[in-house]
């Protein structure tokens, strides 16, 4: 199964992510987003951070989850490569992300993502597969 693909949209960029579980779909959406920022092949799992996010809806949780990762990158330069989500329960996600600090000298600079948006947002189970569509403001 494909993990994610890039959605083409005028002016901005999006990710369509898949997963056998909602956790896997959240992970793939995040990895897809990271891949818009840089080439993940060059990122090493040097350190691990934990993030914990809550929201009032599943859609809200996805947007807040990705916005937290954008915040971690834009503020501390942290970019992840491997993500483990313990479980998504009661509209809460707790995850461990391993990655490293972005270095413009060594890492490719692709898109600067401002935020994950609600535009055309979709978090849905289609037969056995969770699908996520999310558009980013670039």
């Amino acid at each position, binding site marked *: 199964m494909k993990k994610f693909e890039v959605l083409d949209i005028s*002016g901005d960029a999006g990710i369509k992510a898949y997963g056998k579980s909602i956790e896997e779909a959240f992970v793939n959406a995040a990895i897809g987003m990271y891949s818009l920022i840089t080439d993940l092949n060059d990122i090493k799992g040097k350190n691990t951070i934990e993030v914990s996010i809550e929201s009032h809806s599943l859609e809200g949780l996805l947007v*807040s989850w990705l*916005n937290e990762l954008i915040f971690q990158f834009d*503020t501390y330069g942290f970019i992840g490569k491997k993500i483990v989500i313990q479980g998504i329960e009661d509209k809460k996600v707790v995850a461990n992300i391993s990655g490293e600090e972005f270095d413009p000298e060594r890492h*490719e*600079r692709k898109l*600067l993502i401002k935020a994950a948006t609600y535009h055309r947002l979709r978090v849905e189970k289609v037969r056995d597969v969770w699908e996520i569509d999310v*558009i980013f*403001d*670039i």
Partner: protein
Amino acid sequence: MTLEKLRRIDETKIEIPRDYKPGMRVAGIIYVDEVLEKELETQSIDQVANVATLPGIVKTSMAMPDIHTGYGFAIGGVAAFDLKEGIVSPGGVGYDINCGVRLLRSNLMREALLPRLKDLVGILYNEIPSGVGSKGKIRLMPDSEKQLLLKGARWAVEQGYGDASDLERIESGGCIDGADPDLISKKAYERGRAQQGTLGSGNHFLEIQYVDEIYDEKVANALGLFKDQITVMIHTGSRGFGHQVCTDFLEVMERAVSKYNIELPDKELACAPYNSSEAQDYLSAMRAAANYAWANRQCIMHWTREAFLKFLGTTPGELGMSLIYDVAHNVAKIEDHIVNGKKKKLVVHRKGATRAFPPGHPELPDVYKNIGQPVLIPGDMGRASFVLIGTEKAMQETFGSTCHGAGRVMSRHQAIKRAKGRAIWREMEDKGIIVRSAGRGTLAEEMSEAYKDISDVVDVVHNAGISKKIVKLRPIGVIKG
């Protein structure tokens, strides 16, 4: 909801009538001629109609000729709301709060600079932090960040970046009163700490340009512009700080929508009544972000001026590099406008639209009282940019607003595909434009073909009379993130 319902009013605008979709409180108007009408996206037309359904909207929901699909509000949108019945919406401002443009003049002539241009572009590229993951030269301590949010460009001047005389040549004097640093989240503070004095990425840029064509000699003269003169244009905003403020408040507004029972055709239009604490808090935080952006452009201007001075080994007096004006094109402001013959305070949202006040407007500084407000319209990196001036007709028709740029026609992916196998930097160099960019893909995404022709856009607002063409500027040196 059918496109056949659109009606052409005259050669520069079309109307979206109230029966275009249910719930529209007013009609919509899009400023486009027949050429640009062909490029209209259905989704962006819908967005103009959606904004017309919002409570307290005054007169019409408008969009400028550089309209394209945004989140909730279309980019290029202008909407004003009544202070009693109306709303405030972060989506009507956008993520990059006070994204804007500033223009510097100089005494330099194009021919004198051309032989040394490549070196100068290299130096500016090194001096001005830009691109994904770049860090600024300024580290803000919590107290100084608060001061910056309260004072805007004045904070930068107090730190030694530029002169006090720059301030009167900035929209709102480079600072909107009513910013409240206590309403800013810890995250926004953190995110803004190292990003002051950085250009960012995407369509943000610093350009060395020259005056190519003059349409109004008298006003150009008054602005200090003449043919073949070197100018510098800076396009950036409030960086991660503003993005975080918007992200934080979209959550607040989403809750407000159910709290106040506001019916919305699109979640991204999340808003709150003007008089609610949610709306007032957002406006206070938005003003802080707007002030962050004005300080940002002030710092970048200062380093640019220093780099020119050092590189050319000249004096400030000889270089004559000074600020012409600085405009915001993503902001919401409380302004006086005439509605049904009566003066009224309104909250005007401009998302990808520029204020264009006419001569004599009380908010203009003395230097521009007689000629009107300079309007700065950046185009794509290969074609042109324009200086226009505000008009009385803009006050009557568009709440004193005009367009803000070219507007994309191609997605980033399409542009990259189109650029495959081509060296965009070399194509630009062949046209006499030296480009430097931090990101490898940026130049492909930002190539001219990816945008509408800025000249077409500017012609519409000029012909509509909502601003007037003064000069055309052409780029010769471009720094992209």
